[in-house]
């Protein structure tokens, strides 16, 4: 009974978006600092829009398009974003913990200083994405394409990189496991002298 009450409370809090904010976001593609928790935003085109500082935690963003959209300082934790397109967007300083984004497109996306711990980014396309000072513990990049992406000042030892494409990927001032370092070198990644392999 206690568990049931708890799940109802948590479920309600995840879907507690502001209806006026949702209407504004859908109509104008701009909603700064909005409450969009748990909102159904599937298959929506937000290209060129601005959702910065908004709370999108638990929202359903599957197959939506965020081309060159600003989602800085936002909360996307536990959001669903499979096959969404964030091409050349900006998601800096944002909370993306437990984001589920398998197969999404992050080409040229700026993700610096964001928290991507436990995010599922398998099979994503992250060419030229910027992960400078991002938190990447348990982030799942398996089978992701990360060519020409940038990892700077971050600890990757708990990051899952199996079968990730790392051609010309830049690693600078990062800590990696020996296996990750071997993979990166095999993939012709660019490791500078400040990479620690241990």
């Amino acid at each position, binding site marked *: 009974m206690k568990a049931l009450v708890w799940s109802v409370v948590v479920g309600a809090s995840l879907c507690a978006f502001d209806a006026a904010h949702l209407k504004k976001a859908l109509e104008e593609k701009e909603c700064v600092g909005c409450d969009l928790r748990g909102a159904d935003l599937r298959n929506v085109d937000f290209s060129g829009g601005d959702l910065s500082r908004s709370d999108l935690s638990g929202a359903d963003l599957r197959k939506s398009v965020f081309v060159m959209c600003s989602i800085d300082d936002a909360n996307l934790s536990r959001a669903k974003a499979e096959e969404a397109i964030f091409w050349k967007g900006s998601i800096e300083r944002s909370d993306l913990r437990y984001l589920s984004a398998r197969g999404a497109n992050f080409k040229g996306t700026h993700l610096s200083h964001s928290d991507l711990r436990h995010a599922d980014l398998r099979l994503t*396309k992250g*060419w*030229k994405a910027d992960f400078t000072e991002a938190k990447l513990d348990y982030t799942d990049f398996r089978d992701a*394409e990360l*060519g*020409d992406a940038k990892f700077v000042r971050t600890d990757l030892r708990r990051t899952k990189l199996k079968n990730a*494409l790392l*051609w*010309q990927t830049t690693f600078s001032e990062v800590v990696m496991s020996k296996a990750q370092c071997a993979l990166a070198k095999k993939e*012709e990644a660019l490791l500078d002298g400040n990479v620690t392999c241990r």
Partner: protein
Amino acid sequence: MTVTGLWAGTIQNDEAFKAAVSSMGKTDKLVLMIYTADDCPECAYMKKKVFHDPKVEKYLRANYVIVEKNVHRDKLPDGYDYFGIPTMFFIDKNGHKTETIVGSKRAQPFLIELRRIRGMK
């Protein structure tokens, strides 16, 4: 009046395509026309890495003629619009498009695609 520079023409009239077909002689190859851009790491990956994988390169030499078009500098033939770079069009010598691939692929799956497309012709 003909307005050159705006009308790109058909693939059959495309100079690069005609040169590719001419280079085939009597062989039965396909044209692989790849759309690229200067600031495109995926394009560079395909051109510098995948196309030069030993197995891929050998298969390409035997079965394809590659034509590259820079989408910012070259005239693009009518009917060959693109959504995403790189885009690879596979065209028979009569100018019929048989397949389109958008985005990059690793060498092994790309080779499988090349074989599949070659078999389709």
